[in-house]
């Protein structure tokens, strides 16, 4: 059991942190968040410097590193800014589905594309009403190919993405069978609809996608036909680690700001960091940050060692997103009135933390999944 990062991991963490510190401009952050714009310029730079897709093999535009390395980068980015960090993490949402289950052709097409900053990929799985076992979006057999019919909601970056991974209920397969496809978004029959403003993760535009008999070939199938739900489950393990890493970064970033403010802010003739209630709060915050960090690293490492257990990934996402929420909440309180103002920055961390907490699946859903698992229900 070794709890230390390797030299290489520490270097990556340092490089990501330096990049974020140098490039994330606070004024632009306020503007991107307000206007709900994806930070294209930062994303380009991050791709140019090789921060995106580090866990893809070199042949597919990556650096052949591990998920933990990728998680360290997300954490470092979110620590500097929750909005940009989340935008970077979700710029290739669904990539690991292609990475693990895609054909060589699919990997060559998509992975270098997203890692090198040529464009975006997204995963469409959620629908109105949460039930991953039965989707209303259906893939019908159509000669040698398929036709997709249905509607997906809460699709991140749908408006910008050139590629979409879509999870469908498979017609004619065994009950509960699902199939996954990789589509180009300009496929005929795909319609985009905005989902309005969001509370957090505002640099990641979100839309719904309607599929009206979108005809695709057999080559667009990702993984095995009818095995989509197990592919999705595996993918969600990875996605939870990424979301968890974002949570750790947000929590750490909110804590950094609160500590800094508490040291500078003087009331009652002394810096408020010397006051007992503030020290107590800071201690609570550190407790949450560290708990979350080790849970996320543990989960990442279990996937890297090919010993996946969704217990760890559920815990990672659940604990880290709650840590982000609670620490950012405390950070606002320490900042007082200034914390409630946009200029104070921490309210933006808090809103992003809330969105992250509800993204993919809510904490209460995660708790019930964990409960089912412990009690032994399938």
């Amino acid at each position, binding site marked *: 059991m070794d709890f230390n990062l390797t030299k290489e991991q520490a270097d990556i963490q340092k490089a990501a942190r330096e990049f974020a510190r140098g490039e994330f401009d606070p004024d632009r952050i306020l503007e991107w968040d*307000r206007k709900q714009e994806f930070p294209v310029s930062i994303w380009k730079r991050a791709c140019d410097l090789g921060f995106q897709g580090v866990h893809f093999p070199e042949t597919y535009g990556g650096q052949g590193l591990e998920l933990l390395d990728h998680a360290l980068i997300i954490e470092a980015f979110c620590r500097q800014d929750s909005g940009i960090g989340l935008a970077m993490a979700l710029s290739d949402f669904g990539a690991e589905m292609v990475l693990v289950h895609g054909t060589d052709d699919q990997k060559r097409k998509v992975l270098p594309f997203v890692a090198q900053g040529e464009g975006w990929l997204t995963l469409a799985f*959620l629908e109105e*009403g*949460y*039930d991953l076992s039965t989707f209303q979006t259906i893939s019908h057999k159509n000669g040698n190919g398929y036709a997709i019919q249905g509607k997906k*909601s*809460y699709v991140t970056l749908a408006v910008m993405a050139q590629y979409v991974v879509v999870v469908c209920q498979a017609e004619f397969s065994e009950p509960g069978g699902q199939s996954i496809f990789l589509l180009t978004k300009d496929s005929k029959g795909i319609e985009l609809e905005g*989902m*309005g*403003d*969001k*509370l*957090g*993760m505002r640099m990641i535009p979100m839309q719904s996608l309607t599929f009206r008999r979108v005809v695709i070939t057999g080559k667009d199938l990702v993984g095995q036909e009818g095995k989509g739900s197990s592919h999705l489950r595996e993918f969600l393990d990875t996605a939870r680690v990424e979301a968890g890493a974002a949570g750790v970064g947000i929590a750490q970033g909110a804590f950094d700001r609160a500590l800094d403010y508490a040291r500078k802010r*003087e*009331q*009652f*003739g002394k810096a408020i960091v010397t006051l007992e*209630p*503030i020290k107590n709060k800071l201690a609570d915050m550190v407790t949450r940050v560290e708990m979350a960090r080790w849970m996320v690293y543990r989960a990442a490492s279990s996937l890297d060692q090919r010993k996946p257990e969704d217990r760890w990934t559920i815990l990672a996402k659940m604990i880290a997103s709650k840590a982000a*929420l609670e620490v950012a*909440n405390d950070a*606002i*309180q320490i900042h*007082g*009135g200034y*914390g*409630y*103002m*946009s*200029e104070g920055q921490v*309210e933006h961390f*808090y*809103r992003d933390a*809330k*969105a992250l*907490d*509800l*993204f993919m*699946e*809510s*904490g*209460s*859903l995660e*708790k*019930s999944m964990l*409960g089912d698992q412990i009690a032994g229900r399938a």
Partner: protein
Amino acid sequence: MEILNYTEDHLRFRERVRSFFEKEVTPHVDEWEKSGITPKSIWKRMGEEGFLCTSVPKEYGGMGADFLYSVIVSEELVQTSHTGLAAPLHSDVVVPYITSFGSEELKKKYLPQCVSGDMISAIAMTEPNAGSDLASIQTTAVEDGNDVVINGQKTFISNGINCDLLIIAARDPSTSDAYSGMDLYVVEAGEKGFEKSKKLAKMGWQSQDTAELAFTDCRIPKGNRLGTKGGGFLMLMEKLQQERLMVCIVAVAGAERMLRDTLRFCGEKVDFGKPITKLHNNRFKIVEMAAEVRLGRVFLDKLVADHMEGKSIVVDVSMAKFWTTEMAMRIADQCLELQGSYGYCEDNPMVRAWRDMRVLSIFAGTNEIMKGIAVKFMGL
């Protein structure tokens, strides 16, 4: 037996307020949230209907009504799904300083206009370097003949842009004691040297025109001081009790509304083939939320009753302020949680409530200050 005895008159008043808000406030809220301010015309309309400053004595144009009328307006305003129209701040926090401590001349001059909605008021205590530590304010008021000259900067001032009348806390630099050197003055907007310098962007209360105010050699008549010289700090300590009680009303009524509306929404929405409220893991959570809201209501009503009887509520209101505001935030948080992905979409009215509730534990004295007051009065 009810804790508060609402009469037929109160109930009729509540009906009138509710129907007025439904017709003239709720339909405009989205627009006000976008523009970051409420139009003066709605204040004027509230004045015409008799919904502003209900406690002001009849001789100054008010109703001379009891505190329950203030509670009613505040509770009904919570139902309008926004918090920016800070009429209770005007009616029940700022104007009472004039009613209680203003000279006859000031009362005659300003109270009727505050009641009619021709004047919107604000109060300026907080400064960039003086928040929780109110005694450390740096804004100065220097007497010069029959005038007083004010210099300094105030921040996070609600109604800051709309205000026509401001009560400002300032210190006399010739008095070294921070407490006995503080005074409150009434300043009209438009006085030379009084600048509404900046409207502030914030997480919530987006239709509220919270602002920074700047004073540069702002000259006002000496007669604009409230009460006797050096009495400012004590006046604040007295009136902050009701201000905190007003915050508790927003917290409890807000929590009630959020829970009610969320249950309505979740009863219709389906996850795993069932309405969200029927899902096993949600049901206990909902019962826990309902229990918290009930506790808040009972605590609040008892405080209102005590306040109306003139009892000292310092300790209880300090406890209620931190407990009810934290409760309201817990309820807001859990309401979004119940709604899953829809919980972060801004067209969901609960999202605005979540953003709005967050400030309650900060303004009118942070929750840490509330606990500090309780500690002191409980002799701990």
